[in-house]
Every structure is written in structure tokens, then in C-alpha cells.
């Protein structure tokens, strides 16, 4: 092995010849590409199977290029987008690229995580460099063979070309020789204007498997000798297990065992159906160990929190009390959202086989590294003894950031000493916790006589919500006197990140409130926002942590494309939000149908930097808008005595095809590096819709879901 640079052992790029010849370039998705250490491995290493890297691109002599994709794929299209970036710089023939999902491997990859819209921004440069490095080596191999300078060579579609002589060699033909070329340390990346693949609409690499029903998901994992398991957890948050009578359950055919651990009663058997039947025959007593809360309690708690003196100050600019004292007009409003279930279409599940020689885990998880570490800790073994293979995730929406079900599967397998597949039913999924927290906000704005916003107050109060504000987001920085604080009620009901955490509702509340303020100031809502942004630009107050020009860019694009202020017979509402690293502005078109407001169309202007895959990106925006719209209008999870009152899609409503408006998507083309798209399209939707409904009906919707609001019922 030859270390070309020695800055860090963890940041490396490996090169090796495969056993059958060919180039294998292993690259790690690590933090600092500049310090990438490269190692050249000899044939024997690979031939003997000792090379334990998983993230690499390989080129076989028959021109097949294999690219491993390390991040969990849950529909955000990473398994297609990542390889596209590598293939772009490699100048590969995309039709000959094979994509393989890599298992968890912390030696080879960093941030094998899906969440926070962060994968492409994090990996953009190192993926490009991985492709470009391999390309450079292929060029040098061809140069050597033809005895010409590498500068005189070009590549196209998987072929190295010497224009002067007309000679050509495919990457496959050059792969073995290229593998012997020293790994270049400083390769030139393409000018983004020369991209051929990035920015195109490329079909999902798993399409064939998905449309023909091939096993892809965690629930599709089957093994010889595997048992099925379901778990009865306490029916209410705040309850704990007291006693179990499993006699009747054990008598059901197919049941192998009933075991109790922590507050769980698990039924293990030979089929999913039989263990579920047996579960219903369990006789379990529970007792309360914490308050059994109901939604009516939360409504009261919100009132207390909003007037509490105990809140934590998140941001303070100027003298907000003085501003409100001298205000010509004050606008105040409160907004509230319910708990939500993530409800990915594939319920939680995991395969675990705990054996004396090691642990095998297979299934859908957004955070495989943490899950493995937690399992190792639980079983008191070294993490190296645990392997974790990732399946395609049937949705995640944040729920699969939490590995509770992985731990359950591992613990259960360790108890029954059998490979097991733990299956959560839909009911388990919906009643089992880790919800989007319920939150209530109070906004106050002070206007001077000319309608300038001179003071702004926001109090965020939530149930297990952490800080439910984003104190440095717009309009912070544009208001002289500002106070943002938050307060939380700690509850036995478990909560967690839900797609676009916090902002999935905060954006609605804030953008709807700004519409109220614009109205009080007698200003056009778009103009009002642009003026605030000008203020933030020309006379910034405190730190500004968003990009003013990018935000203005999407505002102007959305207004232009939607024909803002120019449409007859349509009521339009506006909204703009910065979340994660990207900017999205939306205009909702609402029309009256049979006396009721109906969302006819949503225009979305998006600045996520360079779009990698136009097909994936377009759908990501439409899907985000539909997600935002559906949950704002329909979805609602409530509690009675600590138990969720909704348990399946018959009483927890998700948006369906007939309820979906047209969604037009426009991308800002500014050539900056990608800034992420898994979440940012969702937050603005609720606000745009509520503001449009206000225009159409004169009714302000301040609470979600809209469908339950008296304002909407009386229209």
C-alpha cells in the first residue's frame, strides 16, 4: 500500500485492481476531501477478500461500472442521485452503471444517515472528486499505452478518445492498466456548465424492482428458521406492565413463545398472522407510573405556558417592550398544531439474528450507525461484532431516525436465541409514539403609523418539543425590536423529528401571521416581505443566518410564475420559507367550489442550488407540497388518558388522489452547489393555503387540521 498523503487515516480513497482485473476506486464520504488520503492496494488484497471497503466505484473489463450508494434510501432518491454525481465526473455511460446499496460501514463512509436534507450537500464535492480521480487515471493509462500526453486525450460516455489519431479505448479495456497508475491527488472537476448527466431527469435505479414486486424492503426479508414477532406495548403513555397471563396466547397454533422484557410482551411464532392472533389473546394488566394525559389537558397546558414567566429567551434584539408601547397598532394571534404520526407506508420492522459469534441486523433505518452502536451496548458486545444491512425504506419522514424497533428486535432475538423478524402493525405504528410534537405559538407585532413592523414577539410552547422556534430565521434581522422565547411541557407521550422538524408547522404559523401583519399594515403580502428583506439587507439587526438574495430570488420567481396580483377569479396566498439550507416560495390558488374553498393549484419556486436529478427533484417538491397540504388539512392525532385515539387510516386521515391540487415547480438556476431538497418544499405550503383561503372567505385558519376548524365549517 502506498499512502500518498498522510493527513488522516480515516479520510482515504482507495484504489485496487479487482480479482478479475479492472479498476476499483473506493472513496469515503468523509468530511474534508482536501485531506483525502489515498491508498493503492495490490491485487492480492482484493483477491483474498481482505479489502473491507464498501463504498467504491469499480470498472470491470466488460465495461460495467458499479457504484455503491451508502446512504439509506427512503424515497429521497439518493440511490440514483449519488451515483449520477460520480458518473458525471467519470464521464461514464449511465446505461452501464450498476448501483448497489452499501451496508453500514463506518470505516468507509461517514454520515450514512438520511435526515436533515443533508446527504447531497454533504457529499457533493467528494462524489465528484471520486469520479474525476478515476477518469484521470483512465486518461493516464491510455496516454501510456498510446505514448501520447494525457492532455491530448478526452473522454466521452465511457470511452477515452485521442482525437488526433482517432484512436479509442473503453474504460473497461483500460481498467486494469489504470489501476496501476498512481492515484492523482489533485484532479480538476468539470465546469458545471459542461454537466451532461447532472440536471437531467434520470429514472430511479430501483424502478424495475419496485414495479415488479421484487424483495427490496425490510418486511421482505425472509430467512430459513426465522420466526415472526409482534410486541404488545403499553396501551397508554405513562403505563407500565404489571402482570401477564399468556396461557391462551400460547395455545394458538404456530406460537412458539411469549416473552416479556421491559414493558413489552412479545409473541414469537411461525407466521405473522398467527402471532397477531395470539397477541389478541394476551391478558395483560398495566398500572400508571406517570400522568395519563389527554388532548384537553394539553389545551389547558398551552394556555399556562403561553403566559408563563419561565420561558427560555432564544433571541432578543433592541427593546421590544418600548416598541410595543409606542406602537400605532398591535397585531396578536395564536396558532396551534396537533401531534402527528409519521405513518410511512411500510410500518416499522427489523430482522435480527443474535448468535454467540455475532449479530446480524437487516432492515430499514435512517441512522444505521447509531442503531448498531445502541444494539452493541444493549447486548454488551463490541460494535464490530454487529453487521447492519440496509434495505430500501418504505418511507421514513423522520420516524426511522429512531432505532427503538431495532433494539427490540435484537433484544428479542437474544432472548429466544433465534433469528426473528419483528413486525409492527399499522396500529402499533400509529399508537406507538415518536410523534410530531403538538405546539402552540403566540405572535405579536407592533406597527408604527406608516405600517412599519417595529416590534415582533414570538413565544413557542410545545409538548416535548424542545425549542419549537427557529429564532434566527426570517423575519429576525429585519425587525429592530424582537423577542423570541420558548417553553416546553414534558410529557410521557414520546415525540421526535418529523419531516422538516419544527418548521413543518412553524412556517405555516409564521407565514400566516405575517399575512395578518401585512393586512394590518395595508401592504401587499409579497411587497411586505420584500421590504422586510431590504431592511435586513440595508440595516441588519443582529445576526442574519439566511441568504437574503436567495430568499428574494424565490419570492420574485413564485410571484412572477403564479401571476401574483394579476389573476381574476382566483384567490392567491403567499408564503416563503428557508429551511435546512434551501429556499422555497409558494403561491396557493384557491377557488370557491359549491360554496367551499378548494385549493386548485400551488406554484412552488425552489432554490436548492444545482438540481442533481430533475425527475427526483421535481417529485420531491411535489411530494413535499402534498405532504404539507395533506397534514395541514386532514391529519390529527389526539389523546385520551394517555392513549392515542387514532390507530389506522380509517380514523387518521391522509390525503388521497382526489384531494390533490395541481403543483407547478420552478427551480432557480443559480449554479451554486446543491443545498438539499428532502424537506424544504413542505414548510411553506400550509401558510400559502391558509392565506389564500383567507382571501377567498375572509376567515383566518390558525389551527390545524383545517378540516376541524369552525371557521372552515361555517363557510
Amino acid at each position, binding site marked *: 500500500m502506498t499512502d500518498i498523503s498522510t493527513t488522516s487515516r480515516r479520510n482515504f480513497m482507495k484504489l485496487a485492481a479487482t480479482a478479475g482485473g479492472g479498476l476499483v476506486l473506493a472513496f469515503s464520504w468523509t468530511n474534508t476531501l482536501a485531506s483525502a488520503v489515498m491508498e493503492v492496494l495490490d491485487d492480492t488484497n482484493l483477491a483474498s477478500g481482505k479489502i473491507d471497503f464498501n463504498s467504491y466505484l469499480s470498472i470491470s473489463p466488460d465495461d460495467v461500472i458499479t457504484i455503491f450508494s451508502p446512504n439509506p434510501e427512503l424515497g429521497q432518491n439518493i440511490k440514483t442521485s449519488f451515483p449520477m454525481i460520480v458518473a458525471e465526473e467519470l464521464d461514464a455511460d449511465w446505461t452501464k452503471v450498476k448501483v448497489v446499496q452499501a451496508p453500514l460501514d463506518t470505516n468507509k463512509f461517514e454520515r450514512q444517515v438520511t435526515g436533515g436534507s443533508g446527504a447531497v450537500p454533504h457529499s457533493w464535492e467528494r462524489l465528484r472528486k471520486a469520479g474525476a480521480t478515476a477518469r484521470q487515471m483512465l486518461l493516464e493509462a491510455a496516454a501510456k499505452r498510446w505514448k501520447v500526453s494525457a492532455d491530448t486525450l478526452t473522454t466521452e460516455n465511457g470511452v477515452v478518445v485521442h482525437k488526433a489519431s482517432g484512436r479509442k479505448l473503453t474504460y473497461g479495456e483500460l481498467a486494469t492498466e489504470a489501476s496501476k497508475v498512481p492515484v492523482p491527488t489533485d484532479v480538476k472537476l468539470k465546469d458545471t456548465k459542461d454537466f451532461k448527466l447532472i440536471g437531467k431527469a434520470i429514472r430511479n435505479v430501483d424502478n424495475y424492482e419496485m414495479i415488479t*414486486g421484487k424483495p427490496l424492503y425490510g418486511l421482505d426479508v425472509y430467512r430459513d428458521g426465522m420466526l415472526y414477532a409482534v410486541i404488545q406495548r403499553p396501551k397508554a403513555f405513562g403505563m407500565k406492565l404489571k402482570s401477564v397471563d399468556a396461557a391462551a396466547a400460547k395455545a394458538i*397454533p404456530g406460537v412458539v413463545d411469549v416473552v416479556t422484557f421491559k414493558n413489552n410482551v412479545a409473541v414469537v411464532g411461525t407466521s*405473522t398472522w398467527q402471532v397477531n392472533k395470539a397477541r389478541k389473546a394476551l391478558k395483560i394488566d398495566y398500572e400508571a407510573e406517570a400522568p395519563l394525559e389527554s388532548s384537553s389537558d394539553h389545551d389547558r397546558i398551552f394556555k399556562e405556558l403561553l403566559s408563563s414567566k419561565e420561558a427560555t429567551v432564544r433571541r432578543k434584539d433592541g427593546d421590544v417592550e418600548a416598541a410595543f408601547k409606542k406602537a400605532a397598532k398591535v397585531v396578536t394571534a395564536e396558532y396551534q398544531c396537533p401531534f402527528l404520526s409519521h405513518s410511512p407506508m411500510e410500518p416499522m420492522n427489523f430482522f435480527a439474528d443474535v448468535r454467540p459469534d455475532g449479530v446480524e441486523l437487516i432492515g430499514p433505518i435512517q441512522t444505521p450507525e447509531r442503531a448498531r452502536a445502541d444494539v452493541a451496548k444493549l447486548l454488551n458486545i463490541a460494535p464490530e461484532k454487529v453487521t447492519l444491512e440496509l434495505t430500501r425504506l*418504505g*418511507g421514513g419522514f423522520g420516524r426511522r431516525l429512531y432505532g427503538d424497533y431495532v433494539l427490540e428486535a435484537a433484544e428479542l432475538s437474544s432472548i429466544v436465541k433465534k433469528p426473528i423478524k419483528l413486525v409492527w402493525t*399499522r396500529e402499533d405504528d400509529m399508537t406507538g409514539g415518536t410523534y410530531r410534537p403538538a405546539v402552540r405559538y403566540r405572535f405579536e407585532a407592533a406597527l408604527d403609523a406608516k405600517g412599519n413592523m417595529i416590534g415582533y414577539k414570538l413565544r413557542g410552547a410545545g409538548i416535548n418539543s424542545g425549542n419549537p422556534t427557529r429564532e434566527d430565521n426570517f423575519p429576525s434581522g429585519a425587525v429592530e425590536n424582537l423577542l423570541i422565547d420558548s417553553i416546553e411541557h414534558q410529557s410521557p407521550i414520546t415525540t421526535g423529528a418529523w419531516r422538516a422538524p419544527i418548521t413543518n408547522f412553524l412556517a405555516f404559523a409564521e407565514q400566516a401571521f405575517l399575512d395578518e401583519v401585512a393586512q394590518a399594515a395595508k401592504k401587499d403580502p409579497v411587497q411586505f416581505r420584500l421590504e422586510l428583506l431590504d431592511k435586513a439587507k440595508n440595516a441588519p439587526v443582529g445576526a442574519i443566518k439566511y441568504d437574503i438574495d436567495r430568499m428574494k430570488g424565490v419570492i420574485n420567481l413564485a410571484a412572477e410564475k403564479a401571476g401574483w396580483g394579476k389573476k381574476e377569479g382566483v384567490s392567491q396566498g403567499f408564503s416563503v420559507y428557508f429551511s435546512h439550507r434551501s429556499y422555497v416560495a409558494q403561491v396557493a390558488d384557491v377557488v370557491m367550489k359549491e360554496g367551499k374553498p378548494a385549493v386548485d393549484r400551488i406554484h412552488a419556486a425552489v432554490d436548492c442550488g444545482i438540481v442533481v436529478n430533475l425527475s427526483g427533484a421535481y417529485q420531491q417538491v*411535489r411530494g413535499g407540497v402534498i405532504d404539507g397540504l395533506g397534514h395541514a388539512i386532514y391529519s390529527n392525532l389526539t389523546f385520551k388518558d394517555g392513549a392515542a385515539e387514532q390507530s389506522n*387510516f380509517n380514523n387518521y386521515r391522509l390525503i388521497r*388522489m382526489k384531494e390533490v391540487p395541481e403543483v407547478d415547480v420552478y427551480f432557480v438556476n443559480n449554479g451554486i452547489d446543491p443545498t438539499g431538497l428532502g424537506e424544504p418544499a413542505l414548510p411553506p405550503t400550509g401558510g400559502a393555503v391558509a392565506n389564500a383561503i383567507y382571501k377567498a372567505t375572509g376567515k383566518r385558519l390558525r389551527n390545524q387540521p383545517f378540516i376541524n376548524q369552525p371557521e372552515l365549517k361555517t363557510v
Partner: protein
Amino acid sequence: MALYKLQINGRSYEADVEPDTPLLWVLRDNLGLVGTKYGCGIAQCGACTVHVNGNPMRSCAYPVSAAANAKITTIEGLESNGKLHAVQEAWDEVDVAQCGYCQAGQIMTATAFLSKNPNPTEEEIETAMNGNICRCGTYHRIREAVALAATKLK
């Protein structure tokens, strides 16, 4: 337990299961046909849709005992002689799937629908597909793919 003989995708299968076992779990746990998905188990989401004698059926709420003499088609049975069904082709061309989990059910609903209504209007497509939930929100593309498949089937 009882032994059931099943006709699935033109082949004969046997399964020794309890009579109340939903066809969904027999397909998945006993026969290894895992393309048919579990989403809700109570006939609400459509992820488990198969064809029984050509009609769309929620296999999670359809006991195996009722399926014994029926002709069953699952997502695995749509391809014929290595060629995708026109609906599957359309799904690929429109690049419908996001996470993909609901799509087998969507495709089975769409194929049954188009076999009865080869010239659907947009509204008829929406009505036919309204029972299938897609949590990822691929509804526009599903609608587009069904319309495209209709033109392919002509």
C-alpha cells in the same frame, strides 16, 4: 390448519394455514410472493391489492379460504415472457415511485381498472385510484402513468 390449493400467476401453490389467514400473509409468509405489501391490514390503503378473477381485491382482508378456487394475480404475475405489462412500462417511463412501497398496489389497482375501462377520463382515473394511499405523494405521476398506460394498451 388446513391445506389450500391456490392458483396464482398461472401456477399452482399449496399452503397449510389457518382458514382465516388473509391471502396477503399466505402470499408473503408461506409462498414467498412478497411484492404484495402490508400497509394497514384493514382494507384502507390498497398496498395489498391483488386480482381475484380479474377484480382488484384487498388481500389483507380476504381470507385464504375464499381464494381457494379463484384465479389470483399478484404484481409478480404481470410481466409475461419477460416483458413488462404496459402499466409497469408507464410507471417506469413516468418515473412514478418515490419510496416505492405503495406502488405494487397502485399498479394492481390500475391494471384491473384499465382492463374494464380502457378509455378513462382524468376524473375516472382519480376515482379508481382514490382508494390507494401514497404517503410520499406521487399522485400526479400515478395519474399520468395510468393515462399513459391507457394509450399504450390501445
